[in-house]
């Protein structure tokens, strides 16, 4: 899932403090799971902002609502009444959710409370690791499930660079594993080392502007004119 972390409180307060009524909008999706923007964190955020506001003798009001997911317009429509009485919205969702919130309420300034970091996994409670760069050309089957695009700090898809350390970590240090060292070990264990000898061609990066996905089975429904119509 998407992993995110809270911006510095002073920075957030700096952008919202001029507004008399601030609505802090939490998200029950990914940012809730990674303990950055769920109901608990959203209440905490409002409390923190109220505390800072009191310190500045500000009369600003901080309301709280947590949507089921901010990346879905239907869930955003549910907060219309609250949004109507706000002067700005503070989103506790990922960048996608914050952006959709801004689309849903185009007259209101929307500020992100979080920095969206990566698509990752839970290593432990509160500890997350990046595992996917959403490159659109998944090669995990060739590399024993370890993504070189994401996990190699140079994104090499043809083997390690010359910087792997004696303990099998990346030249960048800080305990980061060398992805290719790990791939080597895993493929060797599966007796599939021959995979590493195949020259992988240059990636076809999907970097042609914002991507849209009509899921299998929905292609007809969202043929281009329909998508245009839905957007209007």
């Amino acid at each position: 899932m998407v992993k995110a972390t809270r911006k510095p409180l002073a920075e957030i307060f700096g952008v919202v403090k001029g507004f008399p009524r601030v609505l802090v909008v939490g998200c029950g999706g990914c940012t809730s799971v990674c303990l950055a923007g769920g109901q608990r964190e959203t209440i905490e955020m409002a409390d923190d902002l109220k505390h800072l506001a009191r310190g500045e003798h500000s009369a600003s009001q901080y309301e709280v609502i947590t949507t089921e997911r901010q990346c879905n317009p239907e869930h955003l429509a549910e907060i219309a009444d609250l949004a109507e009485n706000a002067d700005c919205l503070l989103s506790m969702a990922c960048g996608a959710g914050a952006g959709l919130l801004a689309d849903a309420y185009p007259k209101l300034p929307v500020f992100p409370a979080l920095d969206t970091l990566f698509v990752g996994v839970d290593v432990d409670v509160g500890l997350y690791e990046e595992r996917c760069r959403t490159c659109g050309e998944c090669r995990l089957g060739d590399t024993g499930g370890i993504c070189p695009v994401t996990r190699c700090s140079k994104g090499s898809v043809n083997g390690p660079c010359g910087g792997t350390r004696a303990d099998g970590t990346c030249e960048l240090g800080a305990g980061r594993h060398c992805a290719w060292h790990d791939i080597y070990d895993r493929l060797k264990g599966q007796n599939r080392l021959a995979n590493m000898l195949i020259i992988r061609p240059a990636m076809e990066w999907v970097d042609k502007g914002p991507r849209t996905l009509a899921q299998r089975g929905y292609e007809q429904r969202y043929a281009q004119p329909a998508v245009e119509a839905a957007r209007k």
Partner: protein
Amino acid sequence: MKSCSNLEKVLTAGAFAVTAELGPPTGTDLEVVNRKAELLRGAVDAVNVTDNQTAVVRMSSVAVSALLVRMGIEPVMQMVCRDRNRIAMQSDILGASALGVRNLTCLSGDHQDFGNQKGAKKVYDIDSTQLLVMVKRMRDERKLLGSDEDFAGNLPMYIGAAANPFAKPYEFRALQLGKKIEAGADYVQTQCIFDVPMFAAFMKSVRELGLHTKCRILAGVTPLKSAGMGRYMAENVPGILIPKEILDRMGSAPKGKGAETGLAICVEIIEQLRQIEGVAGIHIMAIEWEQKVRQIVEAAKLLPRPVV
């Protein structure tokens, strides 16, 4: 002949080749380039021009390579994948060829986190193996990546890669060299060698795979200036192994004799490397110490350089 470069001619003639590294200046002072180039003139067969090594911004390797061509000194242009996408790389390769560059060493590049532009967006659009494939295609088929159309003109280029026998997984490194040769490497320049037995073991694997007959292997060496430099490299530079005996020998050198000891060790290593079957030459990486290269080459009895 693929490029008719001096380096290719020397290696094809079966002579033991010598290349050395020249680090471009961090500003616009051409005197730095002239001085370093003159130090290397006649002492080596070709001069590697590094491409923003350690991710510190320097004068571009294309520009400095072209300056060397003007001076009548043959450059080996280094190109890293860190800073340019395939459009810029192919464009620079065409441009470098037009300016007279005939040797190109293809590298990943040190990560930007090591340099003075830590906030830079890394590129790595293609990796160093894919860069080899791309240049080979440009040279042999006169085609750009992903295009079936021929471009006009020749691209005579001797194509090189890097190899590091001292980085894990060790047992994969000879296989990886084979992969780079298949991708297009005519020659390879290795990471600097201090542990000769370990390098010899790597070369044994290389010979067993028959790679030494398909690609010219230039063994990398670096002279140590001091015991401190040795310790620093051993502890901090990833992918470099310096045996304890060498560190001890540097450490026990009398005061003021550190550099002399480092140069002597370097010459001894070169002599040992020459005895290893499949080593076609050496590549001297004298870091900001270009003035010692001629002395090393001379002490290793590799002067004068062959005229081919």
